[in-house]
């Protein structure tokens, strides 16, 4: 048997609703989970923490019936259970909301909520009842939409509410949320926190997986930390702190997360954008508009681009990089006016863009790390029309060391790496081009803390080498940690600019939600 963790001695009136003990799971050649425990009490928000690859996903898959454990027991309300399929788990009251939603975009909210369980007779669906019941649930969680709206027309945050509504409609007692805040803006996170608290008040328990530790302290009651497939610790959130949790997750001290860093002297203007405007048109009626965007990025500086989701940050980057066309405005690189018709064009002027969605827009998951790193810089590793694999190996080795990428060999498929290593591969691809200007969009989304700090240090180093780095991030702590100067955007407009030393999260939030342009303008 296993050693009873100390916290089990807690005297709680009613026992845990979920108790997983000694769960082990082995994949061919890899031990994914070894003797892992998880206990969730009634009306409890439980944070499941760990770096990527720690075994969180596997544990949750076992719990939700998507995979079976090799050993271990699951008790639900004191009864031993074993789920062969996700359907079994759902019937027992456990519903999982995955990071990538499982909604049918062309069906209505009501259909999605009741998919597979439509109310009505054996043959016919009662649309009236379905709509009524959906409406009732939607109101509970503040989803103010007609149940007959197509899911396609909803924002990401609203789609998440539909997933929650579906879980509630199944009478679930335990909801598992896998990184629910990863794709949400700050205000949407605030809303989600409110809803999760309300669900808790109704007596539901929630397992909450997140990489943002401040959310754990804002929302969760208890935590469990996993590392390398092993159980590390669990306890009350109120009795610990960020540093202790990070130590448990990483297994070592990472030093001060974000140390003091003076704003460096920067060089000449590298990139100048003036009056960049992009209107909606018939071909693209839902596009996010850009209205008169002007900004400057200097050599040797990190410019942070802050804003809520939908503020137009990504769109600005794509317009500069030649991915999307724009209506008017001028772009100057090192003082020379340019206009790119394709990414290829922009790259030839020394600009790189690390896109926001690693898997969809950046990686070739089925292809070798080799191809993933050198595909954009083929000129560097070729002789004529042929790839020179020796030159290529030298280049790959350089970046493997520089970014401490952990890989078995360059022939390994990129899809086999962890999120952090994948992001480093993408960064390596752009660094291999030796850019003058590098735009990175959400550079650390969904990667573990260890890699996150490595990526931050790398960006700071690049700026030191004279590269103009532009960082787009929805995480204000990240923006505040690494930018030298911050430009805020809202609804397609620039709303302000501030030096990092003068900025706080509160000031930035105010600037990001400000209505008038040019509020506080204390340039660096």
């Amino acid at each position: 048997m296993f050693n009873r963790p100390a916290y089990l001695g807690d005297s709680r009136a009613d026992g845990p609703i979920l108790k997983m003990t000694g769960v082990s799971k082995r994949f061919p050649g890899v031990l994914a989970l070894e003797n892992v425990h998880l206990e969730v009490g009634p009306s409890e928000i439980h944070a499941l923490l760990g770096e990527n690859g720690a075994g969180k996903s596997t544990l949750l898959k076992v719990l939700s019936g998507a995979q079976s454990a090799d050993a271990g027991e699951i008790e639900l309300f004191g009864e031993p259970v074993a789920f062969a399929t996700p359907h079994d788990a759902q019937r027992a009251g456990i519903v999982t909301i995955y990071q990538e939603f499982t909604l049918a975009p062309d069906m209505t909210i009501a259909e999605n909520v009741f998919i597979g369980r439509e109310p009505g007779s054996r043959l016919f669906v009662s649309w009236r009842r379905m709509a009524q019941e959906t409406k009732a649930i939607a109101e509970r969680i503040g989803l103010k939409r007609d149940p007959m709206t197509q899911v396609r027309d909803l924002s990401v945050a609203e789609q998440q509410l539909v997933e929650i509504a579906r879980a509630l409609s199944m009478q679930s007692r335990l909801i598992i949320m896998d990184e629910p805040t990863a794709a949400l803006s700050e205000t949407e996170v605030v809303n989600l926190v409110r809803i999760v608290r309300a669900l808790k008040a109704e007596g539901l328990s929630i397992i909450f997986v997140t990489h943002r530790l401040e959310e754990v302290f804002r929302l969760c009651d208890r935590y469990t930390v996993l590392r390398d497939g092993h159980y590390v610790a669990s306890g009350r959130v109120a009795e610990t702190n960020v540093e202790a949790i990070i130590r448990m997750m990483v297994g070592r001290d990472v030093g001060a997360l974000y140390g003091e860093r003076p704003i460096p002297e920067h060089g000449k203007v590298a990139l100048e954008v003036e009056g960049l405007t992009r209107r909606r048109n018939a071909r693209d009626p839902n596009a996010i508009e850009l209205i008169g965007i002007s900004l400057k990025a200097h050599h040797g500086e990190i410019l942070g681009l802050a804003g809520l989701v939908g503020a137009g940050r990504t769109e600005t980057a794509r317009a500069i990089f030649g991915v999307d066309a724009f209506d008017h405005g001028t772009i100057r690189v090192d003082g020379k006016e340019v206009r790119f018709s394709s990414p290829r064009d922009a790259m030839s002027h020394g600009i790189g863009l690390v896109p926001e969605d690693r898997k969809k827009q950046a990686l070739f998951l089925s292809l070798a790390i080799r191809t993933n790193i050198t595909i954009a810089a083929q000129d560097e590793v070729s002789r004529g029309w042929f790839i020179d694999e020796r030159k290529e190996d030298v280049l790959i080795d350089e970046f493997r060391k520089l970014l401490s990428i952990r890989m078995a060999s360059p022939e390994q498929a990129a899809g086999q790496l962890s999120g952090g290593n994948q992001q480093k591969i993408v960064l390596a691809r752009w660094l291999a081009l030796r850019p003058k200007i590098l735009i990175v969009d959400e550079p650390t989304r969904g990667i573990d803390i260890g890699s996150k700090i490595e990526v931050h240090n790398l960006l700071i180093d690049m700026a030191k080498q004279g590269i103009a780095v532009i960082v787009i991030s929805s995480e204000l702590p990240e923006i505040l940690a690494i930018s030298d100067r911050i430009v805020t955007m809202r609804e397609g407009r620039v709303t302000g600019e501030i030096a990092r030393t003068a900025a706080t999260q509160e000031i930035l939030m105010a600037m990001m939600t400000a209505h008038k342009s040019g509020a506080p303008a204390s340039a660096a």
Partner: protein
Amino acid sequence: MSEARLEAAEDRGVDVFGFVARFAPLLFLIVLMILFAAIQPRFLSQINLFNVMRQVSITGLLAVGMTFVILTAGIDLSVGSLLAFAGLVAAAVAKGGLENRFTVGQGGVGYGWFAAALAAIAVGLACGWLQGLAITRLKVPPFVVTLGGMSAFRGAALLFAAGGPISGFQPSFTWWGQGKIGPVPVPVIIFLLAALIAHIVLRYMRYGRQVYAVGGNPEAARLSGLNVNRIIMSVYVIMGFFAGLGSFVLAARLNSAEAVAGTGYELTVIASVVIGGTSLFGGAGTIFGTVIGSILIGVLLNGLVLMNVSSYIQQIVIGVIIVLAVAFDTFAKSRRRKV
């Protein structure tokens, strides 16, 4: 770190499944050959083996081109029709015009095998280019464009030769299909040479990497500065080249070109590529696999013939095998994802 353990596991080579999956087509081919040899000793005779290879060489040539197309997650259903059309054009050039189509041997003042081969290839390139244009500019899915091409090129072939065959070529022409160098039939040499060049292109050239990249993730390829449309266009042109070359060799072997040539070839060709391990979802596959896949289908059909199995049943066998090959690919993929 768990990925460190995963690396360690891979270093030790415990991934038996991955190894088997990789060489599955080759293993299957060897098993099949042993089986046929046991049932029908005639199967292993040198004559029969070269016969199999000669039959394989035409579909094999097409399969080499098809590998490029399928690597980009595309498909070309028009190859059989294009084979017929380009073959007729080559034949007409070799005969010096349509009016001489039935004269045997020396009839008419032809333009020689070289001009005929060039004409066939030119037709292939042009038709491939047209289809590529429709796919990249009009944004019509490859399946639909080449389904249209399948019908249109067959129609063009029938129209061009008014439905009749064009036969009887100079020996210098037919040598390309019937001749031998040593014991090896010329078409086999052409096929293996083409496969070798294609292998080098895909494995060692910048262009090859770009083909895989576009197939693996077109959006990422575009954002990495690749000209995705041009690469997609190019694979259909390459497919057209191989269809043209194949049509020339086929006409030479049969000493005749006709409008119904190559009917149903698209299935055999696609099956060869898929059985060889190239993923229909793009981004994964090798020419080596395609060569094995082509030979495998040839051996299978030849063995069935030697065992006097009806040709109708052969069609059923191919149909079943292509579905099984894709099922295996899907299974292997889900298996990889779990690790």
